[in-house]
């Protein structure tokens, strides 16, 4: 008789969040958009109607036509091709950078949260210092010093943004580290990395993801900011930010050459964030 007094009735069990892996419509839509861009980024070269640098038309900033679906840019190059081929930079570089930044940040954050002591102090101090230096400025110096190439770009962006995710990750990890189940693992004699990997990490996925979203946006923007200062992706290629930048003089004519890439950026960044906001609760709210 004790048996059944302390079991939760099936119905109530459900409520407690079992069947809640359902995903909202918005979330689904956003995932589709992201997927779309990723695919574009991957198969871009086969999709693009014209070579990226080719001047296809004598008149510039044209509005969409049958030959040039998104019009032409300031040199009379096909905008559609440029956006399609730019996808791999904005999508690729940004996601890569954001990913690296978050991975490093989170890893380091957890480690110094769990280790604590002088290690924690030193790391935190150093990272505070990094945060204190304006991003664009720092990026400018680094790239000017090392020279611009894709790896450098990704590296720099990641380097500039990992401190942010470190702070967040550390804060979260410090809290989780105090919870009993972590103590139990320690009492069991579990190794440091097991504790971090199996006990702490899974419980901060949600917030970390949310952080990833915003970080991603800022990286996309910083990328375009760098191209504003004449650094960034090598021509004739251009990330979307650079496309907006180089065609910005077309804004006066309301040229699609400047509006389209902006829309592309917006569509990507917005969907990434909304997608994360609409993740299934089960993935998101894993903090006890």
């Amino acid at each position, binding site marked *: 008789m004790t048996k059944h007094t302390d079991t939760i009735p099936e119905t109530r069990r459900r409520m407690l969040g079992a069947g809640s892996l359902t995903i909202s419509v918005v979330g689904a839509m956003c995932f589709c958009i992201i997927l779309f861009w990723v695919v574009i980024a991957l198969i871009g070269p086969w999709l693009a109607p014209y070579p990226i640098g080719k001047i296809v038309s004598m008149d510039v900033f044209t509005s969409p036509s049958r030959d040039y679906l998104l019009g032409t840019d300031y040199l009379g190059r096909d905008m559609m091709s440029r956006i399609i081929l730019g996808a791999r930079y904005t999508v690729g570089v940004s996601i890569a950078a954001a990913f690296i930044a978050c991975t490093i940040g989170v890893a380091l954050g957890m480690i110094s949260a769990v280790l604590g002591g002088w290690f924690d102090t030193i790391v935190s101090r150093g990272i505070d*210092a990094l*945060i*204190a230096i304006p991003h664009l400025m720092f990026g400018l110096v680094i790239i000017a*010093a090392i020279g611009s190439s894709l790896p450098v770009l990704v590296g720099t962006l990641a380097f500039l943004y990992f401190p942010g995710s470190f702070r967040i990750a550390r804060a979260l990890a410090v809290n989780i580290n105090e919870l009993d189940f972590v103590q139990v693992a320690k009492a069991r004699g579990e190794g440091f990395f097991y504790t971090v990997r199996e006990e702490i990490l899974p419980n901060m996925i949600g917030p970390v993801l949310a952080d990833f979203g915003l970080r991603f946006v800022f990286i996309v923007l910083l990328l375009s900011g760098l191209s*504003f200062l004449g650094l960034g992706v090598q021509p004739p290629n251009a990330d979307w930010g650079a496309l907006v930048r180089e065609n910005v003089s077309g804004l006066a004519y309301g040229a699609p050459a400047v509006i389209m890439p902006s829309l592309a950026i917006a569509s990507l960044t917005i969907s990434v964030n909304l997608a994360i906001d609409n993740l299934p609760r089960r993935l998101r709210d894993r903090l006890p």
Partner: protein
Amino acid sequence: MITRMILTRLGVAVLTLLIVSVVVFVATNMLPGDVAQIVLGQAATPEAVAGLRKAMHLDQPAVFRYIIWLGGMMTGNPGTSLVNDIPIVTLIGGRLHNTLLLAGVTAAFSVPIALALGITAAMWRNTLYDRLVSFATIAVVSVPEFMVATIAVLIFAVRLHWFPALSFANDVHSLGELLRVFAMPVISLSFVVSAQMIRMTRAALIDTLGQPFVEMATLKGAGRVRAVLTHALPNAIGPIVNAVALSLSYLLGGVIIVETIFNYPGIAKLMVDGVATRDMPLIQTCAMIFCLGYLALVTVADICAILANPRLRYK
């Protein structure tokens, strides 16, 4: 409590500044070319460069120069610019004022709005309004600054002639002029800065709204507004002010693009120039200023957090 914190913070600040200065120094020394070459430009014949280097003490080892600079800094003298012999202080003075002015105006404009949006979004969470706000924030932040700025200029300056296309800080003599001159840079900056504040405010507030004492307030007959403003908000201040501080720190050094487009003479551009001319003392001092600004903001934020939380206040 607070005094103790401030003291420790000062210690930390010094340390951080030191780290930053080293990082910056190393980074700038990695840059190709040096100030003598760049000042002489195409007239940089070897002997001319050599002569100028000597005059600028560039012939001494880097570490030595760093220590010299550090010594100067200790005595509160950042030295003089290598490219134009003007004391860094005078060089920065006016621009610092400009930067702070712009930052101040932007903050005064964006923070209240951001908070209001964040709070209301939290109050009516998961309503259409809430979704709208969170969508708008992302949308706004994901448009490149220079895009926003340029559009603003085209519409309000070129077409409508409402505002100037450039912001002449020294035109400002009255509040009216202030608003007129700053309208556009402030708008474009607010776009960038607000997003994080709004999101954090909302998140922090929703967090506390789940607390029993908020439910208790409702059960005492308090309306939604009262429950949020007098019960939830005071407990959410900590994270909120932190987000605000971080966002505002961006207004010091992160505004190069806006400064460029509106030709607004602030420190951010000054530092870019400094980097371009390898003007070490200038770069360093700017970096120090940004760093200080950041630390100050964060500290203020923490103080607010402490004041808002009796548990910390009465320790």
